[in-house]
């Protein structure tokens, strides 16, 4: 019994201090004292505490913004190749030829087709995405708006057989693409693929180029004279070519326009020939 009493009289061992109840007041005192210590440090260094906090906040925001832009907005992220054109030009067929090497029967597209396309001889990190957008007049503008920011290259497909009949529509759509503000900002490479070359009445690419130049000259005039839209805007489109001169494709330097011939269908004896298109796409990488 005297031993026990002696035990109680001994002072608490160090580890016992941890188990002792610390009241919140004690904790708060400790914290405030450490805060005062750091404040004192900063005051000695000459830095005001409030300003310091704001600076740290701004720095974090800045870092986030830089990271964000680096992740999403860089040009290396734009690896889409858009296949656009009028309805029935052969876009979906060309898409299937490029992606799988086989032709397939197709119907009018209601939605876009998307697939990744591996360029031969290129690094794996440089794979492109082929996007086949529908050509029907009512929905094509929506899809172009959706995917134009992803475009590294645009393939504008023209039906060489019915070109003469539809030249006004072909020219109008091409004009809309070439004068679009955001497309001009990105300035992807554009090629005009004259499809269905296996048909008897197909025009060659030189003829198509000449006729399109003449038509675009006229369209340029009429579109600039068109009425402004109800919302008041709609006149921010870029002027195509050089003012006062007849329009020529060589005036439009930023898109590096090229004319190609191709033939996407591979039945009825004619083999499909899309080599020009393939080599053009490889040149994008």
């Amino acid at each position, binding site marked *: 019994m005297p031993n026990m009493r002696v035990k109680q009289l001994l002072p608490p061992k160090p580890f016992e201090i941890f188990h002792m109840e610390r009241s919140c007041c004690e904790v708060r005192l400790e914290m405030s004292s450490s805060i005062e210590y750091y404040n004192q440090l900063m005051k000695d260094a000459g830095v005001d505490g409030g300003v310091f906090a704001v600076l740290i906040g701004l720095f974090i925001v800045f870092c986030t913004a830089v990271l964000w832009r680096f992740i999403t907005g860089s040009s290396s992220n734009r690896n889409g190749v858009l296949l656009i054109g009028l309805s029935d030009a052969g876009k979906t067929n060309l898409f*299937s030829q490029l992606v799988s090497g*086989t032709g397939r029967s*197709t119907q*009018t597209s209601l939605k876009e*087709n998307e*697939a990744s396309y591996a360029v031969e001889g290129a690094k794996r990190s440089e794979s492109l995405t082929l996007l086949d957008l*529908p050509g029907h007049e*009512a929905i094509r503008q929506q899809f172009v708006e959706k995917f134009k920011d992803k475009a590294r290259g645009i393939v504008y497909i023209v039906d060489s057989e019915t070109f003469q009949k539809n030249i006004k529509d072909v020219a109008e759509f091409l004009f809309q693409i070439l004068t679009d503000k955001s497309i001009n900002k990105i300035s992807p490479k554009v090629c005009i693929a004259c499809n269905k070359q296996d048909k008897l009445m197909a025009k060659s690419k030189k003829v198509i180029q000449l006729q399109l130049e003449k038509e675009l000259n006229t369209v340029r005039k009429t579109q600039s004279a068109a009425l402004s839209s109800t*919302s008041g805007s709609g006149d921010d489109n870029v002027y195509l070519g050089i003012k006062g001169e007849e329009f020529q494709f060589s005036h439009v330097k930023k898109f590096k326009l090229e004319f190609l011939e191709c033939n996407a269908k591979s039945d009825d004896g004619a083999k499909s020939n899309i080599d020009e298109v393939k080599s053009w796409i490889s040149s994008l990488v």
Partner: protein
Amino acid sequence: MLDFFTIFSKGGLVLWCYTFQGVKTNFSEPINALIKSVILQERGGSALFNHGALQMKYKLDNEFELVFVVGYQKILSLLYVDKFIDDVHRTFRDRYRQKLLEGSLILLTTNFDFESMFTKMLRNAEETKTQQVVMKKFHESDKAKKTVKSLVIDQNKKDGKETENKAKVIKKGSPKSITNGTGSVESSPKTQRETESPEIARNREKFIQKRTKVAKATMKEGKKAPERKGKLNRVWDKGGTAKDTKDLDYSAPPTMTNGHSNEQVEKEELTEEQRALCRNIRALDDDDEDEEIEELEVDEKKSSGGFFSVFRGLVGAKGLTKEALQPALDTMGDHLIAKNVAADIAKKMCDSVATKLEGKVLGTFSTIAYTVKQSLNESLVQILTPKRRVDILRDVLESQRAGKPYVITFCGVNGVGKSTNLAKICFWLMENGFRVLIAACDTFRAGAVEQLRTHTARLSALHPPSMHGGRESVHLFEKGYGKDAAGIAMQAINTAREMRHDVVLVDTAGRMQDNEPLMRALAKLIAVNSPDLVLFVGEALVGNEAVDQLVKFNQALADHSNVQNPRTIDGIVLTKFDTIDDKVGAAISMTYTTGQPIVFVGTGQSYPDLRSLNAKAVVNALLK
């Protein structure tokens, strides 16, 4: 009997196609017509489409982005096609589910070997159709299963003592029903209830059923179900036979052993029954409370499920059902109607959005309301976007090169602004250097010719000949009042050709759409002169009337012309656009009804107040 069956993706790749034997033609052309006119014009509410002699039914799979189309001859009325498409859809989806979930690459390279299953299903469908419905024999019918006794109407219960007997009968009936259990509840009270109305019978049965639940807990179950007696002689209490003398003897005081006297017995019975009723009522209340508690519990369970189902709805992989879409669609439909879209157009738009979204799997963190709004936005922009190139100046240049005048005709009902907008369009054309001839074919309304004369004078002043190389850029061709409009138009066009005018603007009189002689006159004018552009002038203030006007105008133009391909309305001029704030629904009604684009928008009464339609801005204002 079918002609063809196709399955293709919404991106246009044909996955599988089947043409029946003996059918040689290529079906891509009618299918393209189906896509262009039905799906792209948002007429997706009805799944039927006629193209020549061919009738096509289609079904959209919104989860895997597929379209199923079946075609057959219109004269055959095949009844199994709807169910057949659904069956094929389900089978195809289940079989190729894995492949369909991967991207377009797999769709391109797989060869869908569906033919054997398809022919099997087709044979089944055709066979079920040909099965004759065999009439049931009498002994198979329900009537033969009832006993004769149940069909007998008990004559004695008919009148007089009905109410009393009913009361007694209920009480007698209920113990029967209690002890019989649930099975024979309907049969026993049935015989006594034939004279009542069915509703009272139903309510009574419900009441009895409730009491059976209670009775099982509270009442004794000692009573046996009495045997269904045959026809017994009615025994009247104190009916006056010799046997009753004892009962009728009131000389002695009543004894307890005999039971009480009848009255007292009855009273006691009544009080007993009333107490029983009260007990029952209390028990019923308890029962109700029990039910309420049960319901609350169920609700709580539901709501606790609902709490988690919010997250499940965000993350889950279930497709949308029509029921889930219905409330969101109803709200959007009402919103559109509030914005002056015609009522049935709004409904049709919502139906087509429902067809496009049914079965679609929502992405993470997208609610149903947001998806519906997005889809509706896309559909509306699609409707307002022109389906053909709209460039009047280009077409005028083309006609100029060909050496003939470009003729535009304006038609519409009274007071929509035809003459005013004609003057505005004339001003615009003159600004672009064209020479215009105005034909005053409104020979009816007082002051119409003078109005156009004033406009011509003003426009001439704005564009004097000195500006355009010494030539007048605008002329008026008029022949006064009361003459035939078609004749004046023809003369005007000839004059324009001689005087080398580039454009002829023909102003017609306003007419109501159901005024038959006037519609015939207009149809004659258009059929005889075959203008390059027939513009319907409609005001933006119109509501449901727009649909009626356009339908009747188109019909009249089609009916009263004798040519094979009649000229109908080619474009719409939407006037008085500055008077509506954001209630721009008339634009939707008009373009949906005709399928033609809105070429001009009039926004005021002076010459520069002419605009072109910006589809996106209008749809944003509509869905705000």
